[in-house]
């Protein structure tokens, strides 16, 4: 009921559709940034925190970039905002993958009694021969 009330207020107001879509993407970006930061604060493990920030925070910043694109249109800084969206979606998985590889090489353990699948005491990465030996047995 409250939602329909708010929606009727928003639809009856004097905003143009472009301005309303900019507002929608800003609210979406704030939601995703909040979720990502809560995950960064609350989750127990390096890998879990990386999972929270690398997806949610990137999606939030990308939707705020996209709201900038909707605000400026196909000119000038709007195209720069599109470049920013593309750049964020390209670089955030790369950076988070490199951090998690560095954490695994450093020997950061999982939370609880979870371990790497094979050779849980030596932090060597998995090689295919060990996997083949396990499957043959």
């Amino acid at each position, binding site marked *: 009921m409250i939602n329909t009330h708010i929606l009727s*207020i928003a639809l009856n107001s004097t905003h143009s559709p472009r301005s309303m879509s900019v*507002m929608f993407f800003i609210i979406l970006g704030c939601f995703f*940034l909040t979720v990502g930061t809560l995950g*960064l604060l609350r989750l127990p493990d390096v890998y879990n*925190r990386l999972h929270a920030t690398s997806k949610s*925070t990137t999606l939030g910043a990308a939707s705020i970039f996209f709201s900038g694109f909707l605000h400026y249109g196909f000119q000038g800084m709007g195209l720069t905002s599109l470049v920013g969206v593309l*750049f964020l979606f390209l*670089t955030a998985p790369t950076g988070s993958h490199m*951090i998690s590889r560095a954490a695994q090489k450093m020997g950061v353990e999982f939370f609880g009694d979870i371990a790497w699948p094979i050779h849980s005491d030596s932090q060597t990465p998995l090689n295919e021969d060990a996997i083949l030996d396990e499957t043959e047995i």
Partner: protein
Amino acid sequence: MAELFSFTLLLTSALILISILTLFCGYRAFIGPTIPDRVIGIDAIGTNITAIAILLAILTSFDYFVLVGLVLAIIGFISTIAAANYISESEVIQ
């Protein structure tokens, strides 16, 4: 009642919210138990400041803040790669 959805008010409240979130990311970067925790916190701070730059560009209609956000994203990516290389290889450029 239509003032509730004012554009400037929404942008200002979003800026305040993201600033508080950036402070919390700084908390994680300060107390993080391991070094990758701190790197993740600083990376999240960079992403939040990118969002703050875009919101400032829309709010103050000073368009070049979009470029500031893009350059901050690039610098955050490069610093993340450098920190990951420093953790795993003990050197930044080999």
